[in-house]
């Protein structure tokens, strides 16, 4: 006697079996711990990065003194953290839009520095005082450009909405390329 069993049924059966074999759910405390921003988990590492970030001098030349020339943008000091190295560099913000509580930002990284990284975990650090503002993921777009699309808190959304790409950015960036780096 043969019976035809729909594949959907097989899949549902398999899913149910997987659910039955599932390990116990992680404790809430553990989940909250895992979800904590890395700068709370490793405050000393964050502080070290922030200090290094603060020392980065970006040469803008006369662009800073002459508003007419600011169409080239103000480079944003950036620290790239990899497992084996940390690089001081800067990025150029190409697009900035804050609307409905969302930040859409595009920045450009030098191709050699980016090393064809698909994504970075980006931490925005305010200038003064140096505190972490938010964390987001930057995804590679094209030609050394990365895009960020993330939600902002009300405070940040309100403060950043009037920002233009030609303004000096009120933040610096820490880019982490892998979990260890952050």
């Amino acid at each position, binding site marked *: 006697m043969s019976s035809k069993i729909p594949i959907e049924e097989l899949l549902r059966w398999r899913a149910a079996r997987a659910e039955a074999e599932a390990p116990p759910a992680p404790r809430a405390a553990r989940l909250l711990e895992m979800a904590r921003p890395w700068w709370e988990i490793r405050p000393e590492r964050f502080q070290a990065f922030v200090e290094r970030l603060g020392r980065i001098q970006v040469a803008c030349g006369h662009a800073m003194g002459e508003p007419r020339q600011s169409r080239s943008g103000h480079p944003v000091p950036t620290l790239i953290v990899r497992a084996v190295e940390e690089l001081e560099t800067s990025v150029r913000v190409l697009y900035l839009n804050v609307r409905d509580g969302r930040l859409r930002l595009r920045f450009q990284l030098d191709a050699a520095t980016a090393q064809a990284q698909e994504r970075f975990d980006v931490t925005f650090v305010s200038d003064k005082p140096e505190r972490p503002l938010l964390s987001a993921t930057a995804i590679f*777009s094209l030609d050394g450009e990365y895009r960020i699309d993330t939600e902002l808190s009300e405070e940040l959304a309100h403060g950043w909405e009037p920002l233009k790409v030609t303004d000096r950015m009120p933040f610096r960036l820490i880019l982490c390329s892998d979990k260890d780096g952050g």
Partner: protein
Amino acid sequence: MRFVWFWTFWHWSKESFRGGSLLRNPLHGVGSHWDEWFRHEALESDLRAIAEAGRTESAQRQFIAWLYLHWAHEANWSGNRLIPRFVLGQLAPLSPFKKWQAFDEYRVSYGIGGIPAIVLTAESSGEAEDIRPVEALTLPADTGPKTVSEGFRANAAELETPHRAAMNVLSGKGLLIFLALWLVGGQRPYPRWLKTLLGLGWLSASGLILYLLVGPEPGERLFSFAATLTGLWSALGIVAVTVAVKQCFYAWRQGQRWSSRLEQSQVRLRMNGGLTIKGGSAGLPFCLNMLISLFRADPRATDRSWIWQRLGRRLRAETNGWAATGVVTGDGFLKPVVLEPKLRACLQHAGIKHILTPSQRDASRGAVARLIHAMTPAILKSEPDMPTTAHAQLGFAAEERRLVTHRCRHVAQALMALGGFTSGWQKAMSALAVAVSCLMLLALQDLLCILLPPRAPDVVAPASPSPYYLWVSLDTKHPEYFEVVLESKYWSNRRAKVMRYSGADASVRAEIFLHRLTGQIARDGEDGTVWIERRRRFLTREYASDERVGRYSIAYLNRLVHD
């Protein structure tokens, strides 16, 4: 209005740029602007319309055609034909265009073509893959660097120097060198019949000169010959100078315009492969491709200048079989590079027939022939079981592989080679014209005196203070075109040239030494007539003189006051 969604995007880009959301202008940032707009700003209706435009390949091609024909014109980019290509190239790797088959060709190339560079990888000894296609696009300047690399990495100097060299060739010393090379041996914008006629003209002129120098005595026909020669040479000279000056002027003027355009532009150099360029040996192809990009951006700009027009036409149409290598300085001079692996790469690439190199010994024809010969056994060795005849055929085919090297000291020479300007015939004609002209200039006075003889001079003081000499002083500025002849029954007949004497008795005169004829016993020292004859010369040759323009007696001459 078709493709409204693209206009919507374009206006969003412009407004966002104006409003300070976007850093780069709509053109330079078109790729990333599209990415943002498509992801976050496009409305449902826009997305549906875009999906509809991409539904079939035919619809996709209609969009591409619309971009070329309508959008470029209405967005005021009609002065630069390369801009639609740039836009398509930037959009091609992005959604949804990355799935559109009609965009396939734009994903790897702008479709412009150019002169490939020969860039060896670290472990390569010269392979066909080392021939790297290079394309260049000129766009309106942005706030970024003047030259941008795409698909490869190079430091700023490796991009700036070819840029300066290109500027130099358009409006600096390089242009002078280029025009000088063209003047000396470059093809002229004559139709074939005129070229033949002019050639015959110069040959005729040289023939006439030779005839006047070494031919039989022309006699009364001297005037006709001189007139013909002068007229012919003048006409040829006027044609040559007019054409040269006109073409040089138009070339200079257009070069100035292009130089100005290049100064106000951003050049995007594309060479796929993700290489990091080390050393400047790609400088020459980069420089040439920058020039090509100017020609392609606005081909009609060359209309007034035949030189640039020809060069532009050749560069647009015939760069496929060419490659180039060489370090270029800001002045456009080329420096030597390691050449053998690059020649090997060219020989292994079936499409490359010509290579532009710096002027160095290992780019000579003999060196290339030796390289071909050295490469042949490798081909034969790889087929040990082939019959002898096939071996021979293979060897013959390998030997037949040709690569023409064009050695250049300057980018201008490279342009001469690329434009096919160099002409052996023109060089020969130029040499002949220069030689003829030099002779004509030297003989100009002689010819003028033949054609427009100076007026017959009068005899003036001073007379000779010595009784043994007869001075015939003449009021003429052209002593070399007169001579004096003494005919006398008492004195020996004498012929004396008129010369300019300085000193106490300065004058233009002929001095005749008086020698009494033997057997003369009568004391008739004033017997004799002095004739003033015209001399006719052409360079080193003097013609028989048969024109007497003055006659004076010795008595008259003796009675002239001695100053």
